């Protein structure tokens, strides 16, 4: 126990993170379940409006700040970034451990707030409601997010320094696996964006505790300033959530079609482009809140622009498949799920980025569906792809392929059944954050809740068979997929210092001629 809680080994810290974010995922899932059950009937009889407000707030807070943001970077990134560049560890192992403790402390603060009575501001904490009127546990929650934010900053800082300073001999920038590029771009956003969220929360905190007035309209303050500051972080934050997933997909698509990623440099640079452009579009969340029409047009245009690098990725993945020798192993199934769902999410992003359409669908279920297609359909699919792909390396055990394929299928179907009806609901005018609704929406809501049940089963399956495999799974060889990355050149699971012999890199990232001789056991 102690050797775990005081470990400086990035692989163990990754496992600590894995356990932590999984807990938060199921906590957030519990809130989602209550929301969906409540929405089965139009009268809204199960919980009071106050409770409902708290449910969707706590769902959003848990999922965004305590699950999605740390998910891929802090677990898979932590475990594999050093391995993939041939390093013994991250540059700052103690800071890495500290960052895990910060996430736990932040999580406990938020959990305390939830148990003590909950928060009802929405995950967006809009002022002046959050600063002046809400009677719920805003302060504790904001503090929790603040602390967790520093966890995220420190992870990003650690990754950037590691990529700059710790690459193995011969591991040039353009030989790095694309997952590393995506982690690097993500880290840039974490480092540049999160402090702005932090200071915004500090101001909200001061306003609630010391009654100073910065966003208070009664004093002449501007509550919309809060929205600008919040979205200056939170739009880039959506890329903190999705870029790591894109990195996973690049790895998986390449391995299971046994081809080098088409247009490697484009895919690498598109990650950086997304990181940079992502900072210029926050105004598309303010189309209907006092922003001038001129500013709205500029932000709308820039939002179209930011879709280009994402599209480059999708096209390049598809081109990678072309004439590849494709195998439909579980990670690949999840990756296909990602590409389809992310594309729908991204395209509807363009819908809501158009001024005219957004005025109609803003604050409706259309927006809910849009971002769930990306955050759940995209990021969580990619996370599952990555978990299956790297599970043999992390644990030294294979998962049961048949069950895993089934889970990919169940999740894909359950997901679409849950969220596709929400596009229609939103288009028809169902507002978000309401639990009483007109009768004619009930059919679609029931479909969505039914889908959510399927989805829940889909998520429980990996939970069970992953744990099962720890004891009963077949022993994993060093390189079960015949992949090229350095992480596959060491034992499964890797020894404490990662490599028995310091690696020297002589090839491009996805040169499958180098692994010709190795066994390939794909189910």
């Amino acid at each position, binding site marked *: 126990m102690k050797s775990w809680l005081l470990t400086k080994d990035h692989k163990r810290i990754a496992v600590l993170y894995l356990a932590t974010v999984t807990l938060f995922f199921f906590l957030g899932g519990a809130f989602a379940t209550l929301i969906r059950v409540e929405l089965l009937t139009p009268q809204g009889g199960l919980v009071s409006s106050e409770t409902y407000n708290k449910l969707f707030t706590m769902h959003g807070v848990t999922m965004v700040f305590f699950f999605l943001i740390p998910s891929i970077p802090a677990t898979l990134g932590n475990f594999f970034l050093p391995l993939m560049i041939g390093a013994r560890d991250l540059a700052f192992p103690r800071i890495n451990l500290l960052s895990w403790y910060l996430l736990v402390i932040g999580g406990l603060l938020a959990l305390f707030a939830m148990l003590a009575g909950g928060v009802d501001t929405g995950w967006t904490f809009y002022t002046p409601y959050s600063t002046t009127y809400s009677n719920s546990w805003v302060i504790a929650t904001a503090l929790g997010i603040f602390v967790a934010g520093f966890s995220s900053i420190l992870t990003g800082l650690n990754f950037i320094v590691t990529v700059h300073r710790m690459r193995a001999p011969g591991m040039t920038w353009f030989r790095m696996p694309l997952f590393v590029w995506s982690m690097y771009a993500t880290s840039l956003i974490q480092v540049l964006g*999160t402090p*702005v969220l932090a*200071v915004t929360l500090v101001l909200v905190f*001061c306003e609630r505790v010391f009654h*100073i*007035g910065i966003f208070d309209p009664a004093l002449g303050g501007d509550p919309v300033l809060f929205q600008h500051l919040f979205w200056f972080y939170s739009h880039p934050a959506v890329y903190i959530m999705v870029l790591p997933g894109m990195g996973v997909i690049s790895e998986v698509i390449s391995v299971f079609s046994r081809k080098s990623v088409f247009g490697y440099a484009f895919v690498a640079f598109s990650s950086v482009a997304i990181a940079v452009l992502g900072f210029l579009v926050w105004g598309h969340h303010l189309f209907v809140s006092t922003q001038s029409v001129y500013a709205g047009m500029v932000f709308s245009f820039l939002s179209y622009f930011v879709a280009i690098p994402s599209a480059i990725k999708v096209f390049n993945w598809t081109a990678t498949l072309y004439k590849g020798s494709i195998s439909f192993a579980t990670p690949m199934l999840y990756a296909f799920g990602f590409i389809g769902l992310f594309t729908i999410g991204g395209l509807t992003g363009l819908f809501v980025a158009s001024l005219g359409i957004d005025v109609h669908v803003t604050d409706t279920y259309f927006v809910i569906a849009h971002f769930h297609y990306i955050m759940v359909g995209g990021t969580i699919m990619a996370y599952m792809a990555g978990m299956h792909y790297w599970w043999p390396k992390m644990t030294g055990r294979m998962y049961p392929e048949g069950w895993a394929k089934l889970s990919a299928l169940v999740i894909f179907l359950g997901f679409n059944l849950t969220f596709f009806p929400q596009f229609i609901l939103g288009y028809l005018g169902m507002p978000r954050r309401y639990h009483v609704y007109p009768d004619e929406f009930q059919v679609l809501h029931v479909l969505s809740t039914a889908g959510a049940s399927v989805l829940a089963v889909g998520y429980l399956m990996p939970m069970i068979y992953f744990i099962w495999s720890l004891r009963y799974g077949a022993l994993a060889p060093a390189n079960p997929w015949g992949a090229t990355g350095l992480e596959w050149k060491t034992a499964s699971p890797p020894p404490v210092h990662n490599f028995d012999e310091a690696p020297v890199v002589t090839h491009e990232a996805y040169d499958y001629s180098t692994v010709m001789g190795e066994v390939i056991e794909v189910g």
Partner: protein
Amino acid sequence: MASDAHGETLALREQFDSEEQQKDASTLGMWIFLITEIMFFGGMFLAYSVYRNFYPHVFAVASSSMNAIIGATNTGVLLCSSFTMVMAVRAAQLGQRKIIILFLVLTLILGIAFLGLKAYEWNVKFEEHHVPGPAFHLDGVDTQGPAQIFFSMYFAMTGLHALHMVVGVGILTWLIIATYKGRFTAGYMTPVDIAGLYWHFVDIIWIFLFPLLYLIDRHLG
């Protein structure tokens, strides 16, 4: 654990190949941290700019109620402390233990002097009812609301800056003890070096705060 078997030293942790690589990494890490700090303060500078643009007259009046003499003195104090910090880093490079301690102690004293003057200033604000809240009152403006916003910004910005100073004082104290115990040598003085970066950064923030909060009425006449 296996880590100790490798016999790691302070100057060469096990994950690095050479002392130089480690020093580079630490320095880069500190610079990135400072960038996050710029973004952190940046949010507040943005809020300040927006409101100053909304209420230029009130901001000018409110800022002229500040004691520019104390502000200027504090600026001088911090500039001197940056100088002593540089001298400490220099002494660390040369491995002169006593001189490091001397200059670190001087830096520490100057830092505490800054905090003392700041505390005095805040206290005066309390007496003058310039603290945001029900008792707030500022003479010479039509509306008290925007004036409260100015002082909210003032307290938030100088408060966070002071908090950074307190952290700096803590770091200096630790450095002094560690130097006294002989932890640093000419070959390994990275902590002194990067603590210096941090100290200068906090200093620079003040260099921006001082004119923005104390001197802005000058150009309006």
